[in-house]
């Protein structure tokens, strides 16, 4: 009787323990990177990282989060490199000694997505701040990421630019009933905007993916685009080895330099999502 029991557990136990949990042997050629959900969800990482591996034999383990959480990983020394999009916080990250250097890598842009009939009439707005002001004035639903991500940070900058009174979280004071902070990723935010016939700020990649990448499609349209304030630069920062002696700085530097090299920039520029280019090379000379 008991024998069956033991045999059963013995089989499972040997099955589970036969394979090592963490492959320590190859550890030296692996780096861990915290990045934003947009690089992963847009498919860029699946395109980029294999190319990098082919060139250098280095595996990049990517953890996708909001920019705030990704930077936090760097500040705690939990990753070797961060690849995010919030220029101000990135610069502060380097100034505070958490990272060695910020490299300009690429940019994409944000778009204001909303219902086709454009109830707040933002299409002809002179700039993105006016577009946001019109949404607030018309009190049409606005879906905020509300998750401390790079996109959320940009939303807040836009709200500041509108000159409207804001509360201490940077949200419009009279937002009750039309301003919804949902604390979720880009995809769920897009879905909710569609369900509520509202507007939202989205990165172009995730929007394209929802619009053209799915059998069921997505009804809302890009209503406003092209303003300078909607440009979204991505930077890569190796974590400072003077602060955290355990980080794999050599390989992290290799990855950062590869991204801004001619080859890396070409790979980034050639990536297309559903026939639309998504990320534009942005490496600066002499950086």
């Amino acid at each position, binding site marked *: 009787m008991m024998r069956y029991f033991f045999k059963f557990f013995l089989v499972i136990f040997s099955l589970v323990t036969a394979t090592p*949990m963490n492959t320590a042997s190859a550890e030296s050629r692996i780096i861990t990177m915290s990045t934003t959900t947009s690089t992963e969800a847009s498919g860029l990482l699946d395109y980029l990282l294999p190319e990098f591996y082919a060139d250098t034999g280095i595996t990049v383990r990517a953890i996708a989060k909001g920019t705030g959480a990704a930077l936090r990983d760097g500040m705690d020394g939990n990753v070797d490199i961060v690849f995010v999009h919030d220029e101000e916080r990135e610069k502060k990250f380097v100034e505070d000694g958490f990272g060695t250097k910020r490299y300009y890598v690429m940019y994409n842009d944000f778009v204001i997505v909303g219902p086709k009939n454009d109830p707040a009439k933002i299409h002809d707005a002179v700039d993105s701040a006016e577009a946001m002001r019109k949404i607030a004035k018309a009190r049409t639903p606005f879906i905020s990421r509300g998750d401390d991500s790079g996109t959320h940070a940009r939303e807040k900058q836009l709200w500041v630019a509108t000159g409207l009174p804001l509360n201490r979280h940077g949200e419009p004071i009279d937002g009750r009933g039309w301003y919804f902070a949902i604390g979720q990723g880009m995809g769920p935010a897009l879905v909710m905007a569609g369900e509520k016939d509202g507007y939202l700020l989205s990165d172009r990649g995730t929007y394209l993916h929802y619009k053209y990448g799915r059998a069921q499609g997505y009804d809302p349209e890009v209503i406003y685009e092209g303003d300078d304030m909607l440009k979204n630069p991505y930077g890569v920062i190796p974590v400072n080895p003077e602060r955290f002696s355990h980080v794999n700085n050599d390989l992290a530097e290799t990855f950062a330099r590869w991204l801004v090299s001619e080859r890396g920039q070409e790979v980034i520029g050639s990536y297309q999502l559903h026939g639309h280019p998504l990320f534009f090379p942005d490496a600066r000379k002499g950086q």
Partner: protein
Amino acid sequence: MDFLTQSLAEAFTMLVSLDPELYFIVWVSLRVSLMSTLIASAMGIPLGFLIAIRHFRGKRGVITLLNTLLALPTVVIGLFVYALLSRQGALGHLGLLYTPAAIVVGQVILILPWVAGFTVSAVSRIDERYRRTAMTLGAGPLQTAIAILREARFGILGSVIAAFGRVISEIGIAMMLGGNIKGFTRTMTTAMALEHNKGEFVLAVALGIVLLAVSLAMNILLQVIQGWYGEDR
């Protein structure tokens, strides 16, 4: 409705075509969950057994504590273990964060109260006279313990299976401590959440089917094991 049937159809195609990415995710999930169930059982069954047969002050309190811990939310454990395993934390030097081992640590904490708590109730249900009879018949403490465990085995085994079901279907710990790294710590549940974020449902639905199939298989296994014992008696 079209949307669901279409996703289901594509999901089945994916399952049948033995998509390597899909099956690797399943493998990571199974490995991590089995590991944490084994460790939690190895710790929880003896612990529950001792609590059940010993008489000591504060026994009720311990049992109440175990029952309370059953309701521990996964995100709370995730946060707690994160703070411990982060490079800034007490165990940061181990470098365990964002590895499968980190998920195992969190999941063991999650299900240890389940295994221990249900072992306590399974063993307590065995009549005190059973123990005394075993001892009168000349059984030593170890033999007595084995006899009692044998009597309580269905309850204990049931708790182990339930614990396994709990860890394989949880997401908070796997996401916060594993980090959903492709080909390394991406489990069925974190992959499903990611696919939902991406607005793609085929892989998510396929994984959902596998998840249900695994639960079904575990329960059938439980039935079969109970069947063996039934015939043996």
